[in-house]
């Protein structure tokens, strides 16, 4: 009798403990890529910003942007952080996804993505960004960020995109081997891949995307359902994320008077966090740390531009409404908000 009593007391106290634990830490899963552009996320996690908001965050890592968006759509993850693609907008446009904050952006002075020409194409006259018409350019997939960046360039340089032959190659390694084999004339590549190739003389640098065509590269998003049903949770998550973004920005996005990168406040403390999550050595990460808005503010006008451009390409459903896929209520002071 006494034994049984003791047991039920134990059970009851266990129940209380569990209830307390779940009250103080809500489980949240986040889909992301192991890239430094997701740095704010990793910092918020390791520095305890999520925990401080009562969130117990687990990561689900993917290797491409598309699965991240799909994971959030299907409910396999609550939040996603990745680049903005045509596929993302098509999913979002059906009410499945809502953008709530910014990830990285291509901005002047930040060398994130390089335009490269093969030595042969260079010799044949591909020497500037205006020389792309009539050449072939490797991209990962139709509708990818690479596709969009070529589109931006066409717009800026005033040539028809149709005059560039886009060659979908599925992956960055495929792009690199097609480039080295001379099967495409040019590429856009992340700086971490591009710089060694430039040094080895395998590619000629034509410029940087951030300098030529700044744009909002990525975003933090969640599902339409989560925004509707768990709005306070989203607010807590974005708050913690923005704190991570501020620390990231302070450490990694600083420039000296001549525009050269300098280590900012907390650089030494935060770099190991990036190393840990991206599984890349610091030396490699340091060459291409992307720009992230310190408050997670979006370039709203740019996102509307993206949607309109994809729609003009007939790659995003004309029914998609750019305003409806944004929820600007979680971050103060988004930039470039159209009236």
């Amino acid at each position, binding site marked *: 009798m006494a034994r049984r009593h003791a047991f039920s007391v134990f059970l009851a106290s266990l129940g209380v403990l569990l209830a307390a634990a779940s009250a103080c830490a809500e489980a949240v899963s986040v889909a992301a890529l192991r890239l430094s552009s997701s740095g704010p996320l990793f910092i918020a996690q390791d520095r305890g910003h999520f925990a401080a908001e009562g969130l117990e965050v687990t990561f689900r890592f993917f290797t491409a942007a598309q699965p991240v*968006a799909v994971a959030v759509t299907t409910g396999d993850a609550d939040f996603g952080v990745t680049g903005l693609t045509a*596929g*993302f907008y098509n999913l979002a446009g059906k009410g499945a996804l809502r953008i709530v904050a910014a990830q990285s952006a291509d901005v002047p002075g930040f060398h994130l993505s390089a335009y490269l020409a093969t030595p042969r194409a260079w010799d044949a006259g591909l020497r500037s960004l205006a020389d792309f018409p009539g050449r072939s350019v490797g991209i990962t*997939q*139709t509708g990818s960020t690479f596709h969009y960046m070529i589109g931006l360039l066409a717009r800026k340089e005033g040539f028809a995109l149709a005059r560039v032959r886009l060659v*979908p190659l599925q992956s960055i390694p495929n792009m690199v081997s097609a480039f080295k084999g001379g099967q495409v004339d040019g590429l856009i590549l992340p700086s971490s891949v591009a710089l060694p190739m430039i040094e080895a003389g395998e590619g000629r640098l034509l410029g940087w995307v951030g300098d030529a065509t700044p744009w909002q590269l990525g975003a933090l998003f969640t599902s339409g359902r989560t925004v509707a049903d768990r709005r306070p949770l989203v607010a807590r998550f974005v708050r913690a994320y923005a704190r991570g973004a501020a620390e990231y920005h302070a450490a990694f996005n600083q420039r000296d008077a001549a525009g050269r990168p300098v280590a900012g406040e907390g650089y030494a403390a935060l770099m190991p966090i990036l190393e840990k999550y991206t599984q890349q050595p610091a030396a490699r990460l340091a060459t291409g740390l992307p720009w992230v808005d310190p408050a997670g503010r979006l370039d709203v006008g740019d996102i509307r531009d993206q949607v309109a451009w994809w729609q003009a390409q007939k790659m995003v459903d004309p029914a998609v409404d750019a305003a409806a896929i944004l929820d600007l209520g979680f971050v103060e002071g988004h930039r470039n908000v159209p009236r």
Partner: protein
Amino acid sequence: MSAPEARPVPFRGGGFVRRPRRLVSLSALFGLVLAWQAASWSGLANPLFLPAPAMVAAALWELARSGALAQHLLASLGRVAGGWLIGTGLGLAAGLAVGIFATARAAGMPLVSALFPIPKIAVLPLFILWFGIGEPSKVATIAAGVFFPTVIAAAGGVDAVPRSLVRMGQSFGLPAWAIVWRIVVPGALPSVLAGFRITVAIAVILVVAAEMIGADTGLGAFVLMAGNLMRTDQLLAGVVVLSLVGLSAAGLVSLAERLLLRWR
């Protein structure tokens, strides 16, 4: 003692007969589409994950109207036809050699067994290095996928030709080429045609894979692009067209069987 009562012998035969039931096949297909549409109407199937047949039909119509369908279809059919013909031509030559010559069998069969299971998609990057990013690498991928099953079917067909027929040919003094051409090849034909059934399907599967890399037209490129863009209605429209292509190819093989194997 009175004569025992006569009892009728109970019937135990029947069944296990193959009879064409075209109506049943058609209504099964129709029923599936109907159930699918009903699920979409009732909201059971999320249109994001599974677009309704009507949406797929609309996407298909849009594709056909804009001329994109014809363009993709022609590009893919060209690759399928080229790759299949090359793979089949080489496969038949190798298969006959393997079936007829002991040396060729000893040399070829282990190679075929070793190379057949390699997924041709996995070596596509190699083909791109060898043949470039344009048509040749795609045609080569399909040809490689078609080649090995053709070798196996042709060699098996030769094995199935009764040796007594070959001896008969020899006994009438037929020269070797005539024995091959008039006895071995026609005798191997049923197995070769059965192989065609498989290889046309392989060709359609591989054209999709081959068009993953460096193609901007073709049904495979289209389906892949629709996937990348998350246009599930277009994706399914492409899949429907692909399966129709496969169905027509199988129909052509059936026709060839009916024409060439009338003697069976």
